[in-house]
C-alpha cells in the first residue's frame, strides 16, 4: 500500500512541485494551503508523513508540528519542515517541536523526495524494532 504524505504550503507553486514529485514516485499525496487546514486533514487522514512550510497563515509549521505531536493518531508521523532562507529557526525550537528534518528554500525537489524516503524508511525500521522488542 502506498504511503500517504500531506504537503502544506500557502505557496501553490511549491505545493504543486512537491506533490507532483511525490505522486510520480508513487506516494499518495494530500495537500493543504494553510496550517489549520493541514491540521484538520492530518486528523482526518492520518498521513504517514507531513511536509510543511514554516510561514503559513493561521498556524505556523512549528505550531502544526507541536499539535501533531500531542495527538495520538498523528504523533508517529515524521514532519519535514521547509523554511525560507533568512528565516532560519533556532535549532532548539525545531527539536522541541519534534521536527524530524528541515530544508531551506530554494530546495531541490529531488532532495525532498530522498528525505521523504529516508524518513519513512527509518520510521518503518523503528516500528519493526519496537514490535520485535
Amino acid at each position: 500500500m502506498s504511503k500517504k504524505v500531506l504537503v502544506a504550503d500557502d505557496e501553490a507553486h511549491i505545493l504543486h512541485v512537491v506533490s507532483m514529485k511525490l505522486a510520480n514516485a508513487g506516494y499518495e499525496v494530500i495537500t493543504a494551503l494553510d496550517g489549520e487546514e493541514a491540521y484538520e486533514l492530518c486528523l482526518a487522514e492520518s498521513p504517514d508523513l507531513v511536509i510543511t512550510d514554516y510561514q503559513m497563515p493561521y498556524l505556523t509549521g512549528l505550531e502544526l508540528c507541536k499539535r501533531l505531536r500531542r495527538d495520538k493518531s498523528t504523533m508517529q508521523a515524521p514532519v519535514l519542515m521547509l523554511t525560507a532562507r533568512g528565516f532560519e529557526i533556532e535549532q532548539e525550537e525545531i527539536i522541541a517541536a519534534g521536527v524530524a528534518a528541515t530544508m531551506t528554500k530554494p530546495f531541490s525537489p529531488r532532495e525532498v523526495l530522498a528525505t521523504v524516503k529516508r524518513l519513512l524508511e527509518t520510521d518503518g525500521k523503528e516500528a519493526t524494532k519496537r514490535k520485535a522488542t
Partner: protein
Amino acid sequence: MASLRGRLEGRLRELGLTVSFWDRAGASLLEPTFHGSFCRQLCGLTQVHREATGRLARKVAAAERAEIGTAPTGCCMLGVPIYHRRWLVGSAVACFPTTQMLKSEEFRRACDQDSLDAEFMSGLCRQQQVHDAAEAPTLSHVLEWLIQDEQAKEVAAGELTKLSTSLSETYEELSLLYRISSSMKLTEGTTAFLTNLCREILVVMELDGAAAVLWAREPGSGASEQVVSAGELPVSQEQLLHIVNLGLRPRLSRGKGPVIENRFSRGTAESGGAAASGVDGIGTLIAAPLIIGDRCEGALLGINKTEGVFDTTDLKLISSIGSQAAIALEKHELYDDMQNLLMGVLHALSASIDAKDPYTRGHSQRVAMISRRLAEMSGLEPERVERVYLAGLLHDIGKIGVSEEVLRKAGKLTEDEYAQIKRHPRIGANILGGIRQIQDLLPAILYHHERLDGKGYPEGLRGAGDPAGAGDGKVPYEALILGLADSFDAMTSSRTYRDAMPLEAVIDEIRRCSGTQFDSRLVELFLSIDLASFLAELRSAAASPAETAVRS
C-alpha cells in the same frame, strides 16, 4: 476519449443519454454504454441505428457544429463536436427515447423488423428516463457544455502538469546554482571548486561520472591542462583529455554551446583511429563549454547518464552550470592576477630597500624566511604563517625614509642619526597603511624593534603578546617573531660597521637576551633548529632569484 467518457459517464446516466464517441473522420472510437435495457434492446442490436449515428457524427465533424437528428427507431439523436484546445478531434452522439416515439410508425416498424414486441418494449421504456422531443435543443446544449468543460479541465490539468514539471526542474537548477555560488570561495582555488562542482552535477544530473577540463593556456604561461573528476570515469583522465581534445574541443569552441552525444562510442568508431580503442565505456556524453571572456577555455562533462539518455533538460542545466562556473573561474583568475600583482609589488618594494645598502642585500628575504619558520613552529595557521612571511619581507620598508649616509655609516652613530634610524618602523607602517590588503601586517612592522623589557622603539611597549590574541599594550607576537629573526640575520651578516659574528657567539647572544629583548618561548623554539644548516639554506635561497618568485 476514453478518459473523457469515463469522466462524463455518471452525469450522462443521470440525464438519461446513451452516448457514442467518433473520430474526425466519423469512425467509431467508443461504443456506447446503453442507458437501460430498452435502449440496449432497441438500438444496441440494430445495424440501422448504428449507421444512423455514424452519419450524424460525420455530419457534425464536417459542419463543426451541433446537429439534431432522428434515428430510424424514432429515438432522438444529438451530435456535438469535441474540441481539444482549438482543434476538432471528433464528435459525440447522444441518443434518447422520446415520449412521442412510442406512438410513432418508425418505432413499430423497427420493432417488427427485429421481431420485438412493441407493447413489451413500451413497458421497458417506461422504466427508464424519457424526454420530450422538444427538449432536444436544450439537452444538446447541456451535452456540448459538459464536453467543453471536461475538455477545458483536461487541457488545464495537462498544462499544470507541464508547468509543475518545468517548475520542478527550475527548482532543481536554482538550488544547484545557489549551492554552486555559495561554494565559490575564492581562497579555495580552482581545483577544489571544480571538484566540488563535479560532485554536485554527478548527483543532480544522475550520472556515472562527471569531469571538468581546463585547456592549457598559451604556451609559456606555465599553466598546463587540468582535469578533475567525480564519480566513475570509464576511461583514465588522460584518455578523457585526449578524447575531448580530439572531437569535442573544436565543436565546443566553435559553437560555444553545449553538446549531447547519446551514441558516443559509435560516433567515434566511425571517425576511426586511435580514439576508438580508448573510448570503450562512454555510452552517453554531455558537454558544456566554459567560456571565460570570449574564449572557450574548458569544458564541463557529464559521462554516462545512469538511466536513459541526455535530453534538453540536461542540456539546459549543464549550460547554466557551465556559465555560472565560468563566471566563478573568471573571478578566480582575476583574484589570482590581483594577488600576484600585489605580491609582485610588495616583493619589488622590499627588494628596493635591500638595494639601497649592498650590505643588507637579501636581508628582507632572509628575515621573512626565518619568521615563517618561527611562525610554523609556533603552530600558527597556514594563512597566518604566510602573513608573517609577508611582514618579514616588508619589515624594513621604512628605511626608504632614512638617508643612505646614515644607513651606510661605518662609525658610531650620533644621537640624531640614531633617532633617524629609530623612525623607520613608523615610516614603514605609514607607507603601507595605504594598502587595504595588508592592514593586518602593520603591527608586526611597527613594533618589530620593541623589546620585552620596554627598552625598544618606537613606543617602548612592555611584555610579550599572546600568539592567539592582540597585543593589548604588549609587543604583538608577530612583532616578536620579526624582532628575533631580524636580530639573528643582522648578527650573522656582515655590516658596514662590523663583520659577521660566528654562529656560536650569535647563539650565546640570543640566549643572553632571552626574556629581556626576545620572547623566551620563541628563543627556545629557535634554538631547537639546526642553525648551521638553516643558515646555509637561507643564504642559498635568498641568493637565488627563484625564491623571490611570487608565493601565494
